[in-house]
């Protein structure tokens, strides 16, 4: 194993981190504002990938346009889920867990039934690869990380510079306090579901151009999302980005040294350790 392999693994991991970030951002926003764990978030990611597949491969739309349309439609799906399913449940924690798990079963089966069986893959976002001193980076992975970082930047600008973004942050920090300032928590919840779902859809499109599509792909993505938000710190955007990059790199390095199984197991152990010994993660507060 040469140094080149290690550099290659780090670069690949960095690019994989991009898709994880997009899933994790939605999860962490929803957890922050609505205080629930969206168990169907992985399925939203899967839905985004399949929408792109439907539009681009089956209907022949331009790929980038398809990704954009998928982002919008999945965002609307998120909005509907919040309004129809989550808002009426002003109840116990168990009912949220049940409603979102039930939703994830439904979405999986619907997609499984709607599409024919067999391997599906999205066309490459940008074919070919760059070569830098013997290290190859496929261009689609570069696109993945660039898009992820750009969207994160847009999200940060939205949260810091706009009225609605500030209201959302306020609602996440203190729901009652924000309510007293006239910020409607339901509007914030709807917004956060729409934004989170849209981001996950783009993540699905990026992940789907690197891996194969299948209706159960959401489970793994959901797990990665949890992993990175716990490592980065719950509710922190910066934490989600750094956590995603760390997770991507750690995964591919561990896979290089100990085999791909360990690449999955060790991050999970790490998450449990983080939750127990440092629940606020790397960048969380309190």
């Amino acid at each position, binding site marked *: 194993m040469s140094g080149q392999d290690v550099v290659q693994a780090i670069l690949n991991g960095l690019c994989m981190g991009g898709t994880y970030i997009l899933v994790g951002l939605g999860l962490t926003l929803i957890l922050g504002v609505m205080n629930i764990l969206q168990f169907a978030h992985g399925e939203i990611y899967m839905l985004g990938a399949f929408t792109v597949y439907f539009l681009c491969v089956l209907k022949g739309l331009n790929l980038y346009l398809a990704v954009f349309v998928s982002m919008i439609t999945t965002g609307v799906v998120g909005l509907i889920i919040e309004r129809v399913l989550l808002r009426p449940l002003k109840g116990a924690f168990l009912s949220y867990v049940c409603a979102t798990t039930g939703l994830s079963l439904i979405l999986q089966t619907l997609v499984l039934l709607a599409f024919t069986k067999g391997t599906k893959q999205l066309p490459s976002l940008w074919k070919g690869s760059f070569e830098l001193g013997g290290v190859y980076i496929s261009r689609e992975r570069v696109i993945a990380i660039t898009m992820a970082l750009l969207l994160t930047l847009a999200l940060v600008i939205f949260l810091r510079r706009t009225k609605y973004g500030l209201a959302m942050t306020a609602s996440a920090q203190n729901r009652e306090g924000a309510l007293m300032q006239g910020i409607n928590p339901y509007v914030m919840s709807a917004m956060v579901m729409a934004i989170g779902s849209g981001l996950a859809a783009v993540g699905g499109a990026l992940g789907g151009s690197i891996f194969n599509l299948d209706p159960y792909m959401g489970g793994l993505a959901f797990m990665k999302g949890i992993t990175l938000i716990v490592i980065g710190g719950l509710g922190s955007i910066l934490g989600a980005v750094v956590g995603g990059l760390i997770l991507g790199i750690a995964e591919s390095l561990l896979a290089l040294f100990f085999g791909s199984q360990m690449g999955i197991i060790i991050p999970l*152990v790490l998450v449990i350790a983080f939750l127990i010994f440092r629940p606020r993660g790397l960048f969380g507060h309190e």
Partner: protein
Amino acid sequence: MSRSGRTWSKALSGTVFLAVVLALPWILRPLKSSAYWTHILILIAIMILATSSMRAIFRTGELSLGTAGFMLLGGYCSALLSAKVGISPWLAMLLGAIFTAAIAALVAYPFFRVKGVYFVICTLLLGFIFLYLAGYLDKLTGGWQGFQFYHISPVLKIGSLTIAFTTKTNIEYYYLAVVVVGICLFILHRMEHSRVGLVWKSIREADQLAQSVGVNLMAHKIFIFVVACFFTGVAGGLYAFHVHALSPTSTPANVFHFFTSVYCLLYMVIGGVESFYGPLIGATLFMLLREWARPLSEYWPLVMGGILILVVFFMPKGLAAFREYIPEWSSKLRRLLRQRPTGTTQP
């Protein structure tokens, strides 16, 4: 009804239930596929035990989604002990459950330092870790190909009488499962209706208040977690010696996959979290429905998910409390019927 009358009706319904449970394999006997249906009954018994364990942990207010993972521990441990070490299956099953409880005891203290959704995440990920570890340690567990041991079955010798719990007709194994699950449920039932059970309830309702009157939250939570994981391990062991083929593949069809935890959650919620008989009702009804709906098996998760959401919305106490919904629904219906056409306002 008078008190003694209630006791009598309880005893009578209990006896009838027991008689039906014990007679079921003989009722099914004339069917051509009786062995298959007995196999389903055994699986139902195992899932009832797993779901009841999950519910026992939930009595303290914490939801554990590690059921599938702990079943895997119990199943693999007892299977490996009997097939590779050569211990008698009875002892292996017990040791497997004890091993599961020991692992649970190991993780319980750190896990219970977090609450709510974070505890759910911990247990969920632990289940995945066990699944991947079972695939990774291929020297020990046979890796992704799985682990088969068709030649070993529990055998009971009483004097000159020998009963082998094989998979030929499944009837012997059915009785074994019923007895084991029955004992476990009895213990859980007694615990829940004892002083300890009340303490769990107090922890769920108001943990800080309970702590202020001297309840050791951590000790009680760890205790019930370890006990419940012991029973989950028993369920895993029962499954292992029934199916004789274990695998760590991550397909939804594998019983050790995370989906089983979700299904247990489903059985528990649909049956009713509040009632001890909720898991019995939920698991029995839904596993039978699933068999009946075998031709629709592709749609099955859709149906399950839909029913789960409907139950959460309309029957938050589950099927076990269906009698409470009738007045509520009928009053709603009456109000709906009484409603004036649009334009007039209601007082």
